[in-house]
């Protein structure tokens, strides 16, 4: 066995390998389980977590002030009654999609390369959805009555109004959150067991033991595991499409020029996966370097993700184009005015910025070297993240600020509280992410072992 290891080690590293050279089942397990099990944890983790926690406190402050004073502390007004809250909601929920896309759809499509990143991206999904979920609640004028959006037998004899996309949202997002959580946790079970077995202190052994629901890895467990995993993947797949379609409908249902458009659902889904992959890259690239996981998240992974980025980027670009085309082709004076106003109006700056970020920047990925250079990819991903946020800003704000009656046109000026709420959610997101890396395996060990090249006579 050890001899075989050395053989592999001597092999020249294959640039297209999804696993670094010299990896064995043991090394995979050891290297990955080291992250959560190592004591004491490296300094950079503490620094990072402290920063994230500070931002989280900022969020708490912003929310407390919001509940004391009301949504008036934000820049929203009439006509622009939706502001950052909705922009951020759409942005975060979009980011979540990459996770589900990778773990579910790519799984069903037998894309082996998903293996090393799916665990991490699923976690990302959960935390992004957590951030997204905050905003619809916070943006309500009377959040204390949020439960009126749920159908329950109240003493008023009233029910929610099911024609409203906001009610669909409630169901879409909560379902999405639940399924993602379960999917993620089921995937964790074998690894939790491994951690239990490898943990040094009895305390941690017990904790991981309880979390792993007494997983012993016998054939029966595995059979159930596979079934459940497959079913959940099947369940999650339509959700990838449905959730953001419905978010898209929040706008498409309205008759506001710039919102009222049939392209929105698919266009939103593409955008979601686009921004999602951008966020994955933004997080994975530093992760693999600081934790030296380059053997598991290889340049090949990055390149593949870069390709997805480009593809979805073009879908989004098409979305922009078709918006303008429809506006022009419809001949509707309001739609036409809106398109014009986007390009040369008061918010033209934001629009052109988004075009640069979302359409122009990714084009450098045509160059193979850029696709394989972590640094370049990291920058591109960051820019795309910004761009996708701007896209939502443009959709929400510029559509509202000049609609039908010129007499009620207005401008939107975000306040300090808009910004601190937005930045605060980064705190929530990152803090959760740090904790995840700290206590759970960021890469699916059980599945990674499957990537270790097998030698003859090894398989049963």
């Amino acid at each position: 066995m050890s001899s075989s290891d050395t053989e592999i080690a001597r092999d020249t590293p294959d640039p297209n390998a999804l696993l670094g050279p010299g990896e064995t089942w043991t090394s995979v397990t050891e290297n990955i389980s080291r992250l959560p099990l190592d004591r004491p944890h490296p300094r950079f983790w503490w620094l990072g977590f402290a920063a994230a926690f500070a931002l989280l406190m900022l969020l708490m402050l912003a929310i407390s002030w919001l509940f004391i004073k009301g949504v008036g502390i934000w820049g929203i007004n009439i006509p622009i009654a939706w502001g950052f809250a909705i922009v951020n909601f759409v942005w975060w929920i979009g980011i979540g999609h990459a996770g589900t896309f990778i773990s579910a759809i790519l799984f069903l499509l037998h894309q082996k390369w998903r293996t090393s990143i799916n665990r991490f991206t699923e976690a990302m999904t959960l935390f992004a959805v957590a951030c997204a979920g905050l905003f619809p609640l916070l943006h309500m004028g009377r959040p204390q009555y949020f439960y009126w959006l749920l159908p329950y037998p109240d003493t008023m004899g009233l029910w929610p109004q099911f024609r409203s996309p906001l009610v669909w949202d409630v169901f879409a997002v909560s379902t999405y959150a639940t399924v993602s959580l379960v999917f993620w946790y089921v995937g964790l079970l074998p690894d939790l067991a491994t951690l239990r077995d490898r943990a040094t202190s009895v305390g941690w052994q017990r904790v991981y033991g309880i979390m792993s629901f007494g997983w012993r890895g016998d054939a029966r467990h595995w059979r159930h595991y596979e079934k459940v995993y497959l079913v959940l993947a099947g369940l999650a797949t339509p959700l990838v499409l449905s959730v953001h379609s419905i978010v898209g409908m929040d706008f498409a249902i309205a008759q506001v020029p710039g919102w009222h458009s049939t392209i929105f659902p698919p266009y939103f889904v593409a955008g979601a996966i686009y921004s999602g992959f951008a966020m994955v890259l933004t997080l994975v690239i530093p992760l693999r370097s600081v934790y030296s996981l380059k053997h598991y998240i290889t340049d090949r992974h990055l390149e593949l993700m870069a390709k997805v980025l480009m593809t979805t980027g073009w879908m989004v670009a098409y979305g922009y184009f078709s918006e303008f085309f429809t506006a022009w082709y419809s001949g509707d004076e309001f739609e036409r005015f809106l398109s014009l106003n986007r390009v040369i109006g008061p918010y033209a700056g934001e629009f052109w910025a988004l075009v640069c970020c979302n359409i122009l920047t990714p084009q450098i990925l045509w160059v193979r070297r850029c696709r394989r250079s972590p640094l370049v990819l990291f920058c591109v991903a960051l820019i795309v993240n910004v761009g996708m946020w701007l896209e939502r800003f443009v959709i929400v704000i510029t559509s509202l600020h000049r609609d039908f009656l010129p007499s009620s046109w207005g401008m939107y000026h975000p306040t300090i509280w808009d910004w601190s709420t937005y930045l605060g959610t980064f705190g929530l997101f990152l803090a959760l992410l740090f904790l995840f890396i700290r206590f759970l395996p960021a890469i699916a060990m059980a599945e990674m072992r499957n990537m270790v090249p097998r030698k003859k006579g090894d398989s049963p």
Partner: protein
Amino acid sequence: MQLSNACTHGTVQSDDANEPEVRHKPLFSGRATTIMRVAIAGLALFVCAVAYATYEYYNSPYWNAVGMAVDQPVLFSHRHHAGELQIDCRYCHTTVENAAFAGMPSTHTCMTCHSQIFTHTKMLQPVVFSAERNAPLHWNRVNNLPDHVYFNHSIHVAKGVSCTTCHGPIDQMALTAKGQPLTMRWCLDCHRNPSPELRAHNIEINHLTNCTTCHH
């Protein structure tokens, strides 16, 4: 299937790796699994139970204060006045037929009789006092609607809703208490299908379930 192969190998591997600790004393007792199952099932049950309890509580007479007499400055008995003496409700609640508010009898109204009868009973002292000092009586509300509900007595009476429909068997109440829950659902039940409660049977009901019929 490949995944299974991989993982059986995987487990074998990891077991080897942890040879020293794992084999000896077990981490959990044998009952652990059962406990876990019970706990999970219990949790699910508990959630449902709480939900149901909440529902029942908010629909209970307790929450709606139905049948609970309210302290009053004067021990006034509707049973005696409305029941035994058969005094018409409108004798005291004068505006019930032409105003939103049914009207509470002024002290003057009480004194129309009680300047003659039971004048010196202890029970009536607050009324006498009020009349002498021209200081109004402070009654405590029994039927209490939220400020955003605009209930109009006159139209209900005009449409043939009897007092007892909403106020319960008032003529048998020695101490006055709320007769019905007066929740919105309770109001709507009648507004959706009033005829069972009405003396007159043909009325326009379309607008009765408009929100602005009661809220503006």
